[in-house]
């Protein structure tokens, strides 16, 4: 928690002070870094005879995306209930993102408005940051499934390495499946919600 928080703050200030004035985009470098990390994650899992031969796979681990999505929506609607100026529909769209910011925010921007699209974008970027910062703490205080619940769609790529590190190699498969399932259904749910509003 301390290490991840420090790395993030140093990065943010560094980016603000150094990179802001140059139009240097490091997002493709980040993708390569994620790819390299996932190569290592894959290697560790493939190399460990214990993981795939293990018959103790629990149905429970694969229901995480469903409960995580429901919890997110409940949390989002609670925020709308607390802040009167935030419409329930906006809060619902933001909470359906589950850490997936690119596609949902594009759908919302195109079909509703830029400001709601930006809210969806920011909320879900922050969610990605939260999983990277809080994974160590969540594993320590709650359980090893908690970061997968928080990570949403990011558990198939960006947050999979840190989940591997803290939840353990046995959680790579449920985490990856959680990310894939949500990455498929989130855009569908966002489109459906947009067309119903």
């Amino acid at each position, binding site marked *: 928690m301390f290490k991840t928080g420090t790395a993030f703050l140093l990065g943010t200030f*560094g980016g603000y002070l150094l990179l802001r004035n140059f139009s240097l985009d490091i997002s493709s470098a980040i993708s390569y870094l994620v790819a390299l990390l996932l190569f290592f994650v894959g290697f560790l899992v493939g190399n460990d005879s214990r993981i795939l031969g293990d018959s103790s796979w629990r149905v429970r681990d694969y229901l995480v995306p469903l409960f995580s999505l429901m919890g997110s929506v409940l949390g989002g609607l609670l925020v709308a209930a607390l802040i009167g100026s935030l419409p329930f529909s906006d809060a619902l769209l933001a909470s359906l993102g589950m850490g997936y910011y690119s596609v949902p925010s594009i759908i919302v921007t195109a079909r509703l408005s830029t400001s709601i699209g930006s*809210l969806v974008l920011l909320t879900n970027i922050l969610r990605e940051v939260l999983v990277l910062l809080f994974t160590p703490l969540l594993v320590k205080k709650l359980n090893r499934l*908690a970061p997968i619940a928080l990570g949403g769609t990011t558990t198939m790529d960006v947050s999979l390495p840190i989940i591997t*590190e803290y939840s353990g190699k046995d959680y790579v498969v449920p985490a990856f499946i959680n990310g894939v399932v949500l990455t498929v259904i989130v855009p569908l749910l966002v489109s459906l919600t947009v067309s119903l509003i």
Partner: protein
Amino acid sequence: MLFISLSLIIGFTLGLVFRGRFSNLEFLEKVMDLLVLLLIFSIGMNLGSNTVLLENFSTLGFQSILLALFCSAGSVLLVFLFTLRRNKNV
């Protein structure tokens, strides 16, 4: 983004092929630990240097922070309650 999932599959396949040839992968785990911190650092850099995002943050920041926190907490809590009921030793 396909190459990201592909690299996971390639790594997995190589891990299977070379299973048993490595007695100690602790070194790799240490390298990953450092790379994860580098990843978090670079994501911070990417956000800190994004002026459009920073501009939006000044108007939508409060709402998006609350939403991110409550949605995350909701997800974690519901999954926690669900796992608590089914099995105490996760």
